[in-house]
C-alpha cells in the first residue's frame, strides 16, 4: 500500500472522529437509576414515589453515641437541641425541600382550636355509634362526673373552657384519628420532637430537592449532612442516616473501588497479552482501533437519545471492545500472508467471515434494542454503531500497519496452531459436549428470575448497621405498600384519599398511616355532616332533658354548658384544607400530601399518600382496588418484583429466541450446510448451557445483568464459530485459530476480572462472560471441528 493511500485512510478515520465529537457535543449524561428498570409501569410507579418525595427522603436518627453498648450520658434537652440545630442547618442549606425536626410549639392547643369548630364533619358512621353511647343517660352521667373531677383537679384551671365546650369528651373521638397520622415507627412526641421510647434518640426527616439516585447529588447532600452534623451535634451525640442516599453512595463507591483496581489490572493484562502474541508494538494500535470508533458511535447515538445513561455509555463502550475481534482477525490474516498478492487473497478470505460476524453481532444488538430496559436500548444502539464503525476503521487502518512477515516463521507458526484443529477422537469430544448440553438443558427450567430491585444493591457494613440501629430504635420493618391518590384539584385528591381510607377500614387493615380521617374530601364532609344532622334531629330533644337533669345533680348551673349547646346548634365550619394545611400539623401533612407549585397545570399534579403494612392477601386486594378505582395507584416492592420478573422472563425468552433465530438464519445463509451450521452454532449453544449450569449452581437466579451479558455472549460466541468453520472450509486455519484464541482470551481478561468485583452487578457481569466465553472458545476450537469431521471417513486437517 502506498504511503499516500495509508495517509488518506488515516485522514478519513480522523475526520470521522472529528464529526463524532461534533455530534457528541450536546450529549447529556444521566445517572438516573430509573433507566435500569424494565417496563413503563414500574418506572412510572417509582417516578410517582419520587414525586411524592419518598425516593429522596432521608430519615436521620440523632442518638446518644454508644461505646461498647453503653450510651453516652446525654440529656434529653441536649438531644433535642442538637436535632433542632441540625434541622435548621439542613433547611438553611437550600438543598432540602422539606425538613421536619419537630412540630411547632403549642401545636396541641392549636390542634384542638382548629378541630373543634369542624368536629361534626370528621365524624363518620363508626363515630356515630360511639356518640350514641356517650349521650345515653349512663354516658352523660359518666361524662359529667369526669368533667367535674377534671375541673377540680390541678388541671381544671387550664381546661375550664374546654370542659364548657365539650363536657362529654366528643373531641377525644377526633383525636383518636390523629393516631393514624403516626407512621409505622414507634415514636413518642416530646416537646414536639419525635423521640424513641427509651428517650435516647430523636428522629429528623428531610427531603432532598435533587434526586438522590444521582450519585453526584448524593455526594453533595452527604457533604452538607456531614458539615451540618459537626456544627449542630454536641459531643456524645451522633447522627445516622437511612434512605436512598446511603445506598446510592455505597453502590457508587463500591463500583468506583472495584473499577479502580480491576480496570488497570485488565488493561495491563491485555497489553501484555497482545504484546506477547504479536511481539510487536503495533499490537497496541490493533487493540485501540475499536475505540477510534467510539466518538462516531456516541455522536450518532446522541442523535437518537439526547440523554444517555452513564451506565449505558460505560458498558456500551465496553461492548464496543467486541469489535477488537475484527482488527485481530484482519491483522493476523495480513501478517501471515506472503507478499502484496497474497495479502489481497488473505483479505478476501477474512472479509467473508468478518461480514457474517458483523451481521450476527449487529443483529444481536438490534434485538437488544427491543429490551424493556431503557439503558439496555441505549447500550445496544451505541454498541451497534460502535461495531459498525469499528469494523470500518479496522478495514481502513489495519492494512496500513500490518507488516509483511518472513515466510519461514509463518510456516512454523501455522504448523503449531493448525494441529489444534485436528481432533484425534471427535466422538469423545462430542460426547463431553453433549453431557454439557444435557446438563444445561436440565438446569435451565430450574432457574428463577429474580426481579427484586435490591438484588443488584450492595449496602456496605455501615449502611447495614445504620439500618439495624434504625429498626431497633424506631421499629417498623414490615413489608409496606404506598397507596397514592392523584387528582387535578385538592378536593378531588382528598376525596380519593378518603375512599382509600374507607377501603382499608373495610378490609380490616391493622397498621396504616393516613391523614384522610382528619382531612376528608368535600364528598366525605358532606356525608358526615348529613349523618351528624340526622343523628341530632333524632336525639337532641331527649338529650337536652337528660343532660340538664344530670348536670344539675352533679352541681352544675343551668348555664354552665351553654357554649356546648350553642356549638351543637351551629352549622359546623367547613374544613378548609388551606387553613388546615397551614395549621399545627402542617409538617406532617406536607410529608403525605403533595401540592403542585403555583402555575403547574400538569394533569393529576396533586398527590396524597397512605402507607399500609401488607401481607399477600391484602396486597392482592389492593391491586384489585387499584385496577378498579380511578386515580389510585398501589406501589409495593412485591408488586414491582412480580412485574420486573414478568418483564425479565419475557425479555430473556423473546430476545434470546429472536437473537438465536436471527443468527441461526444468518449462519444457514452463510454455509447452506447442516454440518457447518451446527459447527458454527455450537459455541453459542455451549455458552448458553454453561451459563445455565453456572447460574443453577450459584443461587439459581437470573437478573437483569445476566440478560444483557447473555445476549452479548451469544453475539461473540457465534463469531468464533463462524471464523473457525470458515477457516476449516477454506483450508487456511492458522490465522482464524490464533484469532479466536486471542479474542477469547482478551474477552476473558477484560470481562473476567470483573468476576472479582465486590459489586453484585459487576460480579454477575464478569461471571456470565467468564463462564460463557470460557465455554464457547474451547467449543469453537475443539467441538466445531469435531462436528465437521465426525462420521466422515477422511478427517480434515
Amino acid at each position, binding site marked *: 500500500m502506498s504511503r499516500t493511500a495509508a495517509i488518506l485512510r488515516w485522514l478519513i478515520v480522523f475526520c470521522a472522529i472529528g464529526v463524532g465529537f461534533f455530534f457528541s457535543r450536546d450529549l447529556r449524561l444521566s445517572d438516573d437509576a430509573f433507566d435500569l428498570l424494565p417496563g413503563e409501569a414500574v418506572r412510572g410507579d417509582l417516578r410517582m414515589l419520587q414525586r411524592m418525595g419518598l425516593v429522596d427522603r432521608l430519615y436521620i436518627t440523632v442518638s446518644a453515641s454508644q461505646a461498647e453498648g453503653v450510651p453516652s450520658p446525654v440529656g*434529653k434537652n441536649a438531644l433535642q437541641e442538637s436535632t433542632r440545630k441540625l434541622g435548621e442547618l439542613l433547611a438553611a442549606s437550600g438543598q432540602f425541600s422539606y425538613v421536619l425536626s419537630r412540630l411547632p410549639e403549642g401545636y396541641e392547643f392549636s390542634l384542638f382550636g382548629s378541630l373543634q369548630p369542624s368536629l361534626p364533619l370528621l365524624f363518620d358512621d363508626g363515630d356515630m355509634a360511639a356518640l350514641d353511647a356517650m349521650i345515653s343517660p349512663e354516658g352523660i352521667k359518666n361524662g359529667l362526673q369526669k368533667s367535674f373531677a377534671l375541673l377540680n383537679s390541678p388541671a381544671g384551671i387550664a381546661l375550664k373552657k374546654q370542659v364548657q365546650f365539650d363536657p362529654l369528651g366528643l373531641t377525644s373521638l377526633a383525636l383518636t384519628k390523629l393516631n393514624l397520622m403516626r407512621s409505622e415507627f414507634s415514636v413518642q412526641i416530646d416537646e414536639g420532637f419525635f423521640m424513641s421510647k427509651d428517650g435516647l434518640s430523636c428522629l429528623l426527616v428531610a427531603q432532598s430537592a435533587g434526586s438522590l439516585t444521582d450519585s453526584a447529588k448524593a455526594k453533595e447532600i452527604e457533604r452538607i449532612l456531614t458539615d451540618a452534623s459537626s456544627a449542630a451535634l454536641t459531643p456524645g451525640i451522633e447522627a445516622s442516616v437511612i434512605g436512598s442516599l446511603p445506598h446510592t453512595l455505597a453502590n457508587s463507591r463500591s463500583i468506583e473501588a472495584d473499577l479502580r483496581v480491576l480496570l488497570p489490572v485488565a488493561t495491563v493484562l491485555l497489553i501484555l497479552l497482545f504484546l506477547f502474541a504479536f511481539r510487536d508494538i503495533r499490537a497496541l494500535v490493533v487493540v485501540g482501533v475499536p475505540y477510534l470508533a467510539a466518538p462516531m458511535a456516541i455522536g450518532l447515538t446522541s442523535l437518537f437519545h439526547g440523554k444517555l445513561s452513564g451506565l449505558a455509555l460505560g458498558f456500551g463502550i465496553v461492548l464496543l471492545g467486541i469489535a477488537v475481534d475484527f482488527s485481530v482477525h484482519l491483522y493476523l490474516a495480513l501478517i501471515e500472508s506472503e507478499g502484496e498478492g497474497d495479502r489481497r487473497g488473505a483479505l478476501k478470505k477474512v472479509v467473508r467471515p468478518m461480514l457474517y460476524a458483523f451481521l450476527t453481532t449487529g443483529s444481536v444488538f438490534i434485538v437488544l434494542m427491543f429490551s424493556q430496559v431503557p439503558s439496555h436500548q441505549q447500550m445496544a444502539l451505541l454498541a451497534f454503531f460502535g461495531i459498525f464503525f469499528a469494523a470500518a476503521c479496522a478495514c481502513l487502518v489495519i492494512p496500513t500497519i500490518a507488516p509483511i512477515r518472513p515466510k519461514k516463521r509463518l510456516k512454523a507458526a501455522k504448523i503449531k496452531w493448525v494441529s489444534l484443529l485436528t481432533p484425534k477422537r471427535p466422538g469423545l469430544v462430542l460426547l463431553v459436549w453433549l453431557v454439557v448440553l444435557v446438563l444445561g438443558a436440565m438446569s435451565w427450567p430450574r432457574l428463577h428470575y429474580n426481579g427484586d430491585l435490591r438484588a443488584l444493591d450492595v449496602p456496605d457494613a455501615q449502611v447495614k448497621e445504620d439500618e439495624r440501629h434504625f429498626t431497633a430504635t424506631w421499629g417498623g420493618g414490615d413489608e409496606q405498600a404506598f397507596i397514592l391518590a392523584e387528582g387535578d384539584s385538592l378536593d378531588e385528591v382528598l376525596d380519593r384519599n378518603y375512599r382509600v381510607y374507607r377501603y382499608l377500614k373495610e378490609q380490616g387493615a391493622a397498621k396504616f398511616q393516613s391523614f384522610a380521617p382528619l382531612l376528608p374530601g368535600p364528598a366525605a364532609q358532606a356525608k358526615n355532616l348529613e349523618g351528624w344532622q340526622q343523628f341530632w334531629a333524632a336525639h337532641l330533644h331527649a338529650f337536652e332533658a337528660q343532660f340538664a337533669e344530670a348536670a344539675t345533680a352533679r352541681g352544675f348551673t343551668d348555664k354552665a354548658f351553654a357554649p356546648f349547646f350553642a356549638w351543637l346548634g351551629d352549622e359546623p365550619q367547613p374544613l378548609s384544607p388551606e387553613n388546615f394545611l397551614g395549621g399545627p400539623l402542617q409538617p406532617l401533612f406536607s410529608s403525605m400530601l403533595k401540592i403542585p407549585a403555583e402555575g403547574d397545570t400538569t394533569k393529576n399534579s396533586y398527590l396524597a399518600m397512605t402507607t399500609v403494612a401488607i401481607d399477600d392477601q391484602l396486597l392482592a386486594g389492593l391491586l384489585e382496588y387499584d385496577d378498579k378505582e380511578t386515580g389510585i395507584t398501589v406501589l409495593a416492592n412485591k408488586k414491582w418484583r412480580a412485574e420486573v420478573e414478568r418483564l425479565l422472563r419475557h425479555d430473556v425468552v423473546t430476545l434470546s429466541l429472536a437473537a438465536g433465530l436471527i443468527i441461526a438464519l444468518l449462519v444457514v445463509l452463510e454455509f447452506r450446510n447442516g454440518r457447518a451450521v451446527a459447527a458454527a452454532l455450537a459455541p453459542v449453544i455451549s455458552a448458553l448451557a454453561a451459563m445455565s449450569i453456572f447460574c443453577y449452581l450459584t443461587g439459581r437466579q437470573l437478573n437483569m445483568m445476566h440478560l444483557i451479558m447473555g445476549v452479548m455472549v451469544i453475539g461473540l460466541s457465534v463469531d468464533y464459530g463462524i471464523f473457525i468453520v470458515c477457516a476449516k472450509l477454506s483450508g487456511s486455519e492458522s490465522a482464524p485459530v490464533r484469532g479466536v484464541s486471542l479474542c477469547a482470551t482478551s474477552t476473558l481478561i477484560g470481562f473476567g476480572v470483573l468476576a472479582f468485583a465486590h459489586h453484585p452487578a459487576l460480579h454477575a457481569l464478569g461471571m456470565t462472560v467468564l463462564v460463557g466465553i470460557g465455554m464457547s472458545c474451547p467449543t469453537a476450537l475443539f467441538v466445531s471441528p469435531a462436528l465437521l469431521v465426525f462420521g466422515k471417513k477422511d478427517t480434515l486437517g
Partner: protein
Amino acid sequence: MESVRFSTPVRRLAASVLFCIVLALSSVQPVLSAESEELQSFLNEIQAASDEVRSFSSAFVQERKLALFNEPVIFHGSLTVVRPDRLRWEFTSPVPSVLIFSGERGIRCNADAPPVNFDLGSDPIMRTVAEQLWLWLGGDYSRLEFLYHMEKSGPSSLTITPKEEAVTKFISTITITFNKTSRQPEKVEIAEPGGDSTVISFQSYVLNSNTPDVLFTVCGTDE
C-alpha cells in the same frame, strides 16, 4: 397608607403629659425601691426556710368557686413533696383521685379508671400543671421573679401576677400565705379572670420525714 398627623396644640399637650409622667415616675422610684427591699428580704427569709426542707407532707382542703357550679365545691386531700422533682397530689373526698409527678413522668388515677401514665414532654396539660405546682411548692422562690410580678401583701403573704400572656388567660393572681413560724406555704389563693377562684389550705405539715418511694410509683398505696 396616609400617615396620621397631629395638629400643633395636640402635640404640645402630649409633650406636657409626657413630662408629668416622667416627673411622677422619678418621685415614685424611692418608694418602689423600699418595697423591693422588703420583698427581697421576705423572699430571702422564705427561701432560707425552704432550703431546710427536703420533703414534706400535708393534708389540705381545696375550695373551688366557679361560675359553672351552683355552690363552692370542697375537696379534701393530701400532698407529699420530695424535692426536687417528686410530688403526689391526692384527693380523698368527695371524688378520690391521685396525681403523681416523678421527674419527667407521671401517673394519674381516677376512682374507676385504670391508671394513666404520662410524660411531661408529650402531655402539654400536665406539663403546665406541673410547672404551676412546682412554682409554688418547689421552694425555689428566686425563679418566681423571672415569670411573675411579685408583691408582698400583708405580713406573711406574697401576691404574684403572671407576666406571660398565655398564663394570664387562665390566672389573674396567686396569693401565697406562709406559716409565720415554719415559713411553709399555708394557703394558696388563685384568682382567675372572670371571678372564679380556688383556695387551698394546707395543714398538719410534716417536714423532712422518711417518705416511701411507693407513693410516687403507684396510685393505690393500700395494696
